């Protein structure tokens, strides 16, 4: 699997972090942790810019986070015209990482509030793409 399988429209074909997508396919939301200095990253980084190590391990994000910012997009960029409206959001987790993504359409737009509890859930985008979305915990 190449990195172009990520999301509705991907602009990246290759990345050392491609296992992120393999895990999504296995219904797991993972990110990387530096094996040497222990720094946890999101988005995943296969190289640690704190200690210079490229030895990383994948760890699962199974916590619940808090919504810190969001916006419901009415006009999408090219390739997303048919998906609007959708809500982009950043959720902050207890381990310090912040994750950018969309909220699930199962959450009514009027119910979306800064401070609400959300967790990321892997999703499949037919026919063969993967992503994740935020769902209520």
């Amino acid at each position, binding site marked *: 699997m190449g*990195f172009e399988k*990520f*999301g*509705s*429209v*991907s*602009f*990246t074909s290759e*990345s050392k972090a491609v296992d992120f997508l393999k895990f999504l396919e296995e219904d797991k939301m993972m990110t990387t942790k530096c094996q040497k200095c222990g720094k946890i990253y*999101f*988005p995943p980084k296969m190289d640690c810019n704190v200690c210079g190590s490229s030895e990383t391990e994948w760890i699962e994000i199974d916590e619940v986070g808090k919504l*810190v*910012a*969001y*916006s*419901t*997009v*009415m*006009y*999408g*960029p*090219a*390739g*997303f*015209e048919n*998906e609007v409206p*959708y*809500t*982009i*959001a*950043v959720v902050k987790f207890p381990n310090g*990482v*912040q*994750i*950018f*993504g*969309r909220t699930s359409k199962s959450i009514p*737009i009027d119910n979306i*509030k*800064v*401070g609400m509890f959300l967790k990321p859930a892997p999703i499949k985008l037919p026919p063969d793409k993967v*992503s994740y979305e935020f769902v209520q915990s």
Partner: protein
Amino acid sequence: MKKDVAIVGVGQSPFYRKCGMGARELCFMGFQEALKDSNLKPEQIDASIVCSAAEYDKQRSPASVIADYLGITPAPSFNLETLCASSSTGVRVAYSLIKSGLHDIVAVIGFQKMSEITSHEAAERMGRGGDIQWESPFGVTMPGYFGMVASAHMAEYGTTPEQLARIRVKSSIYGESNEKAVYRKRINVEQVLNSEIVTSPLKVFDCCANADGAAVVIMANAEKARKITDKPIWVLGLGGSTRGTALASRLNFTSVAVSREAAQAAYEMAGIGPEEIDVAEVHDCFTIAEIVAYEDCGFAKPGEGARLIDEKQTYLGGRIPVNLDGGLLSKGHPVGATGASQVGTITRQLRGECGKTQVEEAKIGLIHNLGGPGFYNYVTILGRD
């Protein structure tokens, strides 16, 4: 006050929705005005820096053809890009070229012909405005990023859509008297609030529009500056900051980290604080961006930016007048030209040339110029003799 490098000439084309001419011809308009302003001839320009966001240019590496069209070859020229902050970065680089002694007189040429590409091409580029690996696959937009900032600012500090609308109302008042602005019609709070939502909570009138335009700043060392003009405008402070594209790496969403850091660095270099700024231009690509800029530049404490607009403290006659040329919201935002246009406005304010929008006795001015949704900010502090 350091008097090493000065602005000796500024010029700007009108900003247009669609200019109906070539990019090099747009640049010619801005450059000729700057030449007249400084009484310089093209052959006196020792080097030029051509600033634009290359994603809108059909011409690969436009510095060459533009320098040729302006008649400033074979002096060295090159392209420089930091998205919307390109020409403020140009001012910073011109300062270093002059201060190092490498060149005496340098022209910073900012331009963008955004109407060059189709709306589909523009929508495609917009989608790549963030981190293409981790964000673009979700369908990000530039207004979307600032909508997120607005949501956080509203939740944390209680900022309201009415307060955002007041920023646009101020912009429309000053835009009305700027002959080079795209939008010159006054609008009221209700019109802003009743306009269509683009991306929550931002509405059509909360957003600036793409535009075509060029703006030019000519800078010189102290010796030349004294000979060129009796009103040199000195570069007192320069501050810059860069941060990663990924939203997830942001510290918080109620402030723009690069703006705070760049302002801090510029104040430090100038040896002054925000209370000494008499007039400012801030990057109001969206109404919320101006409120956050008040806070990031230190004109208001975090969370109190909206109060400045409520109390009209950023109007002419207020404590710190901001964007008296109408800002991006009224002028339009030809990405590469915006910073040089802001620098032009502050230069003319400090020379006392702004007529009915003139801030009385303006001695020190600040320019805050953001690139992308928080990738870059370059802050410039200028002062008169």
